[in-house]
């Protein structure tokens, strides 16, 4: 029956997540090529075009990095929350909530100074993300309600709420076919660094460094690790495990909210159902596949941003943009599968003597 037994390796190569990602990527590209061949396309042609139009010029590279920004920020939030061994499946909703909160403040208050206004609006977006995870967080720390389920369900509540807003109270009368809120004014657009690269990406770099510090070098990160390892050890050490988990959840939700805010101020410029294109879900996988390491999230997130841009532009060749999604998903599955061989050893059950 069970001829093979598996067990965890004691020493796991530090770079294993990196290697398994590379293996996954080659699997993803191979499968993508096969699909392209079946569809009568030349994969090399398609991929080189994708490469050129996603990272080949300052303009395209900056588009890719802008695309990566929400993915990375939401991923960082998930990684902080995972320090206490909790999951946040609700990043998608938190991204929307960030945008909603931002827009709410924008239409409710007039702030004369546009720089100050942008900063305040982004903070609002962060708070919006935190508010979005508040109930799941409270339910978790007070009653132990499974956060995977509550954060997941909250996505639908928030997205439903977004649909309500853009079809109802916030509906832009000028947007006839596509339900969306009115655009924000140009004065609060996030400025660009060069090419199309938004300052959002700079914020993203800062957040990556910040989260890395928080997780690896700070007392708070240490307390999160102990709390995540064992709540009883935390209590024993005098660490308020629930409070730490609560704070981690709020920060994580906030980062996803910030992602929504940046996306709104730099890309969509309005609240609509297109504010997030599944960033929140992809972010979970990106975070998990990189072993929750901030730097890994940054790199893989950037790559996926480029892949998405590449996927959009190849549509002009008559190639479905879904091919990029398939490559992403197979890359992730490939990485997940190869991760197994780095973390476990397999042994055949024998007793031949």
């Amino acid at each position, binding site marked *: 029956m069970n001829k093979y*037994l598996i*067990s965890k390796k004691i020493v796991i190569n530090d770079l294993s997540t990196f290697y398994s990602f590379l293996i996954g990527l080659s699997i993803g590209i191979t499968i993508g090529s096969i699909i392209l061949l079946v569809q009568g396309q030349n994969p090399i042609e398609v991929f080189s075009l994708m490469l050129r139009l996603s990272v080949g010029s300052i303009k395209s590279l900056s588009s890719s990095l802008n695309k990566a920004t929400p993915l990375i920020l939401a991923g960082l939030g998930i990684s902080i929350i995972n320090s206490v061994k909790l999951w946040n499946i609700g990043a998608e909703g938190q991204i929307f909530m960030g945008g909603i909160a931002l827009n709410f403040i924008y239409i409710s208050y007039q702030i004369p100074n546009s720089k100050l206004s942008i900063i305040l609006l982004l903070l609002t977006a962060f708070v919006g993300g935190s508010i979005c995870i508040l109930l799941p967080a409270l339910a978790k720390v007070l*009653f132990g309600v499974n956060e995977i389920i*509550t954060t997941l369900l909250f996505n639908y*509540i928030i997205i439903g709420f977004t649909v309500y807003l853009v079809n109802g109270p916030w509906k832009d009368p000028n947007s006839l076919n596509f339900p969306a809120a009115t655009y924000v004014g140009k004065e609060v657009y996030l400025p660009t660094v060069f090419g199309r690269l938004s300052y959002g990406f700079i914020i993203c770099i800062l957040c990556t460094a910040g989260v890395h510090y928080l997780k690896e070098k700070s007392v708070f990160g240490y307390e999160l690790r102990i709390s995540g390892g064992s709540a009883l050890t935390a209590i024993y050490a005098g660490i308020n495990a629930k409070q730490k988990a609560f704070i981690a959840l709020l920060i994580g939700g906030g980062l996803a909210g910030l992602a929504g805010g940046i996306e709104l101020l730099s890309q969509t410029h309005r609240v609509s159902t297109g504010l997030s294109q*599944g960033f929140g879900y992809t972010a979970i996988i990106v975070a998990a596949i990189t072993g929750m390491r901030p730097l890994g999230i940054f790199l893989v997130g950037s790559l996926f941003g480029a892949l998405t841009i590449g996927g959009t532009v190849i549509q002009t060749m008559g190639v479905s943009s879904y091919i990029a*999604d398939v490559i992403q*998903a197979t890359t992730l*599955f490939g990485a997940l599968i190869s991760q197994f061989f780095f973390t476990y050893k397999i042994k055949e059950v024998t007793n031949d003597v």
Partner: protein
Amino acid sequence: MMFDIQLMGLLNATLQAGTLLFIAALGELITEKSGILNLGVEGMISIGAVTGFMVAVNTGNLFLSVLIGVFSASLFASLHAFVTVILKQDQTVSGLILTILGLSLSALLGKKYVGKKLPVKIESLIEIDEPSNIFEVLISQNYIFYLGIFLMVATAFVLKKTMFGRRLEAVGEDSRAADSMGLNVNKTQFIATCVGGGFSGLAGVYLTLSYVPYWTDNMTSGRGWIALALVIFGGWKPYRTAVGALLFGFLEALVPRLQTYGFELSPYLVKITPYAITIIILIVLTIYKGGRTGAPSNIGIPFFRENR
């Protein structure tokens, strides 16, 4: 009289929407009972929907379409089973990837089928144009509806009364204890995951071959996620899940009718209510039943046999 017909129309729509959600939820329930969480329901429904549709367009053979739809979704679910059961990788992550892959793969497969007409359609038991009483509504449902009822009774019976079902639950409750009873944990979980996928596939086939009926990208539009919520709502019990499916289906049916009934309520907000109710139920159950929400104890935890 007019009111009756409207009411019956609402009931009819409730049953149709509820059937789809229920079948997918029932499949997920079986998978979760074995201790495997599969968040990929949305992707599996999509795969079932597109493959069933393709076969129907090409062959016109309904039976074959349903069969292929169910089988391909089941095969697709086996990917999740392989990654989580055999390779012990994280179930949450794998399930989410399954959703992305299912949605994109089905969009690719179905690209040429967008807008195609169906030569056949899954029929109703008895065709009644405007049923005027509950009895007429109940006998004029789609075959899949009756299949759903059969699956509900069968699943409840198998889980509670048969050795196979008790063993499946044993694996989901405590895989190590189940292993010590000589049960094959991996095999059980693998089968349960594939069966769950098959149910999702059936829901998908129902979607494209009767409920809508056409094919377009992302046409599952979140129903897979509702199915996941339904399992929680139903406390991992087939009959309670069916009640939940009726409620969720009712709300789905109600939304487009709200305005004709003259309600000021925003249909978009009404659509949110099932999720809010599910969250409240979950919290209340956790508080008052000391965490006994009905969830299998071992859900999400990979099983390792102790060995050296």
